[in-house]
Structures are given as structure tokens and as C-alpha cells.
């Protein structure tokens, strides 16, 4: 139903429409409104037969999810930032055990210094965790991706992280066609677990694996994760048929025809980037955009094809690897292997710093004539940073 609704509420209602059987919740900004919404739906009887567990930590949240999923329940939780890091051991465990848990990450920076605002440092830190990672551009897509996430997770028996920008999306009120339960029921069949804890057919789950088989187990996990490169687009196509709108998939191109310069980004910043690109295209600059929706598994081949005519690639990232530089760029470079395409990284929006059209326009105009460094921190107060570094070192 088309509604003017907060992003978190849209996600809560969508998750509810997916008929989860166990939801575990621990508060952390900016994720809290999602589980608050679900708490209300369970309490008022709208989610009959669903257990809502208020746990004592994010580590417990993911652990409860592991137990519930292994017992055959459709399981959901949500977190952000420090909370995601606090549950990391269990995050890896969930994927290692092949449990199709769906978790929203309301993207937020990681401290110190403590910062509650948006960037992608949290979910990017989990890119090697074995989870599928999907990034929403809009609240409509955030809602839709949750429906798709349960389908993808349960088809592959792998956990899926749906990443949506904290505050920018979670707290934004806008028009969302919130999926209805009757629609979702036709799209998402009841959960049939691959393996389940059952006294009538007892299995041991979580055995210790030694050197003789560990490599094989990890290889299989990789290959299974790669299967998602087929499943994610298929689920997106099926979703379009069922719901009549395009959401999800691996990547989304914008004005790529004849684009010499291609900007790559993830999440809600794509809207601002497209606005700037529209203006630049109107000024006869050959520039286009690729939005990456599925960051794990990384759609290397799809990105390679999309970049086959590009002369330069600019990757805008809301996180980075201290000591090296960009994260997404490293993945994109795998798609550029053997090509002469130049690449630039711009780190922007850290800890919630607004990424303005003006700053973006200036940067992109310079980048389009190769007038930028390989690595740029957008809107950095260089003078302040340099003086502080000097003061600390000497």
C-alpha cells in the first residue's frame, strides 16, 4: 500500500509481511525504530505466532537468531555500528552454519571517536563474513530488499544483510509502496529449512572440522556464495513480475551509454550523485553511474561488462581501509583487470558529514579531466588535519 512513512516503519511492516517466526532485538541507533515497530506488531497481535525476544546484547541477538534458524524458524534481527561489531563472532558463525537469517544493518559509523551518524564502516567490516550484502538506494528499495532477502536467504540457506543508510533512510519520511502480506505470501513460500534440529531425526550441527576438511568447507562456502550471483537477479526479476516495480538485483546502471567517466557508489548517496550527473550530462560531459546493490558476492563480471567502455572510474565510498584506502575500489579493480581504465577513490560522508551537490560537482568536474589524486577525502579540512598531525608527531 502506498504510504507516507518513515523508512524504519516501512521496513518493520515489510518484515512483518514476511511472517517471521522469531525476532530478536537489541536497541542501537539508528536501527531502533525498526525493532520498535516490530515489537508493536507482535504485541498487538498482528504477527500471530511470532516470538519477539528482547535480548541483553547484539551478541545474544545473533546467537538467538542462530538457535531459532537452526530450529527451522524464519528469523530476523536488526543492528548497526558497534552492535554489528559486538556480534561479529556470531555473524561469522551464522554464515558458517548456513543459516538463512535476515538482518537489517542501519549503516552507521564506528568509533572511536563515537559517532552515531551514517557511513558504511560497519557493514563494510563484515564483507568477508560470508553473508550476502545488499545495499538499498531508497526506502522503497529498502522495503523491497527485505522481501527479496528472505527469498534469497532461504533459497541458498545463507544469511543476508540488508544495508540501509542510517538516519538518511531509516529516519526519512517518504512515499513507499509497502509490500502487503497477501502480496508477499504469493512471492515468499513458507520457510523449508535445509537442515533442522529435530528429536525425531537428530543431527549434530556445528561439529569441529580439522585441517583434513576445513579447506573444502571454506571452498564450498565460497562457491555457494557465488551462486547468489545467479539467484539475486532471478529473485529481482520475479519480484518485478509480482510487485510491478524494479528493485534489487546486482547493479543498476544510469546514463552509461557513451559515458567516458563512470561513478560507482552504494546506497542512498546514489540519488545525489545522479542529480549531479544529470547536470553534468546536460553540460555535455559524458558521465554515468553504477549503483552496486549486491556487494557480497561482488558481481565482478557484471561490473566489468558495465565498465567496458569507460575511460575512468570514480568510486565514492562511505568507508575506507586505514592504511590502504578505499574498500569498494579494491573490488572494482578486479573488474578492471587488464584494462587501461583509470580509477579514483573519493571517501565521503564519513560519520554523517553531508555530501553536498556542490562538493560532488566540483570533485567530479575535476576528476573528469583527471585533475584529482588517486585518493581524495571529500571536503577534508586539510589545514586543520595537517596542523593536528604536526602537533601530535612533534
Amino acid at each position, binding site marked *: 500500500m502506498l504510504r507516507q512513512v518513515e523508512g524504519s516503519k516501512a521496513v518493520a511492516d515489510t518484515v512483518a509481511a514476511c511472517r517471521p*517466526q*522469531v525476532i*530478536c532485538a537489541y536497541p542501537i541507533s539508528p536501527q531502533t525504530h525498526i525493532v520498535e515497530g516490530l515489537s508493536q506488531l507482535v504485541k498487538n497481535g498482528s504477527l500471530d*505466532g*511470532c*516470538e519477539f*525476544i*528482547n*535480548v*541483553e*546484547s547484539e*551478541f*545474544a541477538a545473533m*546467537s*538467538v*537468531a*542462530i*538457535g*531459532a*534458524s*537452526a*530450529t*527451522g*524458524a524464519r*528469523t530476523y534481527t536488526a543492528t548497526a555500528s558497534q552492535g554489528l561489531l559486538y556480534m561479529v*563472532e*556470531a555473524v561469522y*558463525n551464522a554464515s558458517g*552454519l548456513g543459516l538463512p537469517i535476515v538482518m537489517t544493518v542501519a549503516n552507521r559509523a564506528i568509533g572511536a571517536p563515537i559517532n552515531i551518524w551514517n557511513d558504511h564502516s560497519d557493514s563494510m567490516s563484515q564483507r568477508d563474513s560470508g553473508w550476502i550484502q545488499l545495499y538499498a538506494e531508497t526506502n522503497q528499495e529498502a522495503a523491497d530488499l527485505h522481501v527479496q532477502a528472505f527469498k534469497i536467504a532461504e533459497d541458498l540457506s545463507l544469511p543476508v544483510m540488508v544495508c540501509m543508510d542510517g538516519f538518511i533512510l531509516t529516519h526519512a519520511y517518504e512515499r513507499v509502496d509497502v509490500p502487503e502480506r497477501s502480496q508477499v505470501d504469493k512471492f515468499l513460500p513458507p520457510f523449508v529449512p535445509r537442515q533442522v*534440529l*529435530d*528429536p525425531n*531425526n*537428530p*543431527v*549434530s*550441527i*556445528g*561439529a*569441529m*572440522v*580439522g585441517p583434513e*576438511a576445513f579447506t573444502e568447507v571454506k571452498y564450498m562456502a565460497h562457491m555457494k556464495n557465488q551462486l547468489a550471483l545467479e539467484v539475486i537477479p532471478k529473485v529481482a526479476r520475479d519480484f518485478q513480475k509480482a510487485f510491478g516495480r524494479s528493485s534489487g538485483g546486482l547493479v543498476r546502471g544510469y546514463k552509461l551509454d557513451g559515458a567516458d567517466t563512470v561513478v560507482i557508489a552504494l546506497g542512498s548517496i546514489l540519488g545525489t550523485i545522479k542529480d549531479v550527473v544529470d547536470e553534468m550530462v546536460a553540460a555535455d560531459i559524458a558521465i554515468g553511474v553504477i549503483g552496486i546493490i549486491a556487494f557480497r558476492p561482488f558481481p565482478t563480471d557484471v561490473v566489468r561488462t558495465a565498465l567496458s567502455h569507460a575511460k575512468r572510474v570514480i568510486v565514492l565510498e562511505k568507508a575506507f581501509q586505514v592504511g590502504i584506502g578505499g574498500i569498494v575500489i579494491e573490488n572494482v579493480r578486479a573488474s578492471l583487470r587488464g584494462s587501461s581504465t583509470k580509477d579514483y577513490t573519493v571517501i565521503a560522508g564519513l560519520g554523517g558529514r553531508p555530501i553536498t551537490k556542490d562538493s560532488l560537482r566540483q570533485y567530479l568536474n575535476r576528476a573528469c579531466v583527471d585533475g584529482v589524486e588517486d585518493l581524495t577525502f571529500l571536503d577534508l579540512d586539510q589545514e586543520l588535519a595537517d596542523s593536528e598531525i604536526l602537533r601530535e608527531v612533534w
Partner: protein
Amino acid sequence: MSAAPIKFYQVGSFAIGNRLLSPEDRSIQSDPERTNALTSGHRACQGCGEALGARYALDAAMRATDDKIIAVNATGCLEVFSTPYPESSWRIAWLHSLFGNAPAVATGVAAALKAQGKSDIRVIGQGGDGATVDIGFGALSGMFERNDDVLYICYDNEAYMNTGVQRSGATPPAARTATTQAVGENPGNVFGQGKNLPRIAMAHEIPYVATATVADLRDLEAKVIKAMSFRGARYIHVLVPCPLGWGSESCDTIKIARLATQSGLFPVFEAESGEVTSSTPIRHRVKVEEYLKLQIRYSHLFSPNRRDDVIDLLQATADKNISRYNLIPDESGSI
């Protein structure tokens, strides 16, 4: 099975003697049709108290639930020796996730069963003392506080045995571990530290808390069966001697566990909703020294110099337990 102790005056022991009992009073392990929740072939050390305790506890739980149990196991010896892939000694539905999250995973299993309407299937969480009193303590307290329908069993061997005998929050004072070495002026683990988890469990006012040892396995069986008659969070703390970590003879596991109770160092009791409801009286009181001297982890108390000062402190701990839990009902408590 009756929870009342059955006395065999001819041997002066609670042990064996099943053939003298009516079938319903016999130990579950004496039944040729027993379920073997943890079956043979696993890789526990000879004389492992934990393997013994786990088998008795889980088979009792199966008896009490018509075999409908799911167990969640913390990382530790019990997990490692029972499931080296591709082998498994478990004949029950069994899940191992991590070291510090077994109570929370068990909560998740219970929640899923409730959501699925399968309330006849019961959930058991289990782990060693490291998993229970230390790294999984937050998760355990959360499970207690929410009164989730889980029986959690701690097999307490008083140190991190799987990683090579390091101190845990359950390591007793003066005990030598790899991280509380028997060197210096005050050798072994320090006094005045550590957690009394049964008391902490009671403070959550959960329906049922009990302690037990592998010296009285019929008592352990009875307590597990009793625990399964409650809904909500339940906790059983089982003392399981570890020949490797304690430096004791494999054949002395039961004897040492019995001396722990008969000295008063390990009080055996039950509590409901935060109040002690019963304690098992000491039958033949011994000095703590009888318990200590069988274990190399305490050998520094006897050689090269006898440390009466430390032994007296440990005796005082035992004496306090005897009076606190009324372990010698007819006496003031002195030896």
C-alpha cells in the same frame, strides 16, 4: 524414578545395587534400552567427569521428555571430544555455535519451538565452567532474566581444561592452574575471587536451581528429571572432576567428587524461585585435606612445606558451606 535416596546398608553406599531395586527406582543407565544420548567412541580422557555427567544428565532428560530434547553445546571439551568431523557421539538433536553464546542459542531454539507450537520438545543448554561463569555469563543471565524455557547444565571442572588448564571464575582458591601457577608466596589461585554461580542463578529467582556431582549420579538423574517438570529457566551446576586438570588418578574421579561433597567444599542443594529448598546431608564428614591431597593442583599445600595456613582457609570455606546449607543437620558443624 524416586528422588529419595535409597540406602544399601550392606555396602554403606548409594552406588550400584540396581538389581535390588524395583525397575522404576533403578538408574536410567541400568536400562538396557537406555537412550545413550552421548554414546561410546568419543574422545574424552579416561576418567572424565564431564563425559560421565553429560551422559547421565541427558539420558535422564530424555527419559523425562519421551526423548524429545534438543541440546545446545558451548565450545569446550564436551563439544570437541564428541564431534570431531565427520564423527559424532550425539544421538540427540545437537547444536554447537560458539563458546560464549550457548544460553542465547538455546533461547533461540526454545523461541522457535514455541513459535512452531512444539512445546513438547524441550531445550537443554550445556557447557563447562568457562563457558558458563565467564564468557557466556551475560547470555546466561539474559536467559535466566527472561525466564526462557531452557534447562542449562554447567559441568564444572573448575578451569579451562580444553585450552590447557587455565584459571576460570570457577577455579577455587589455592588451586594451581596454568595461569595461577604454584609459585611465589601465595601459590595457586588467589583467595577472595570467583563466582558462585548457583547463588547468582538463584538471585534471578528462576524456578529451579540445583547442584550435583558425579559422585551421586542417581541424585543428578533425579534433579534433571525434576528440572524437566518445570517450565522456564532452570540451572543445574554439576561438579565434574578432571583428571588432567586436577592432576588426579583417572580411577579417583568419583572418589574426589564424593570427597568434595563430604568435606563441605561443594554443597549439594536445590533451590526454587530463589530459596533453598533442600540440601544433601554429609554422611561421613572428612577434612578438606582428604580431598586436596589427591590432586596435584593442590600439591604445593603439602610439599615442600606444609601450608596449614592455606589449608585452614579452605577448611573455613567448607565449614561455612556446612553451616550455610545445613549439611550436618544434627551437629554444630565442627569435626
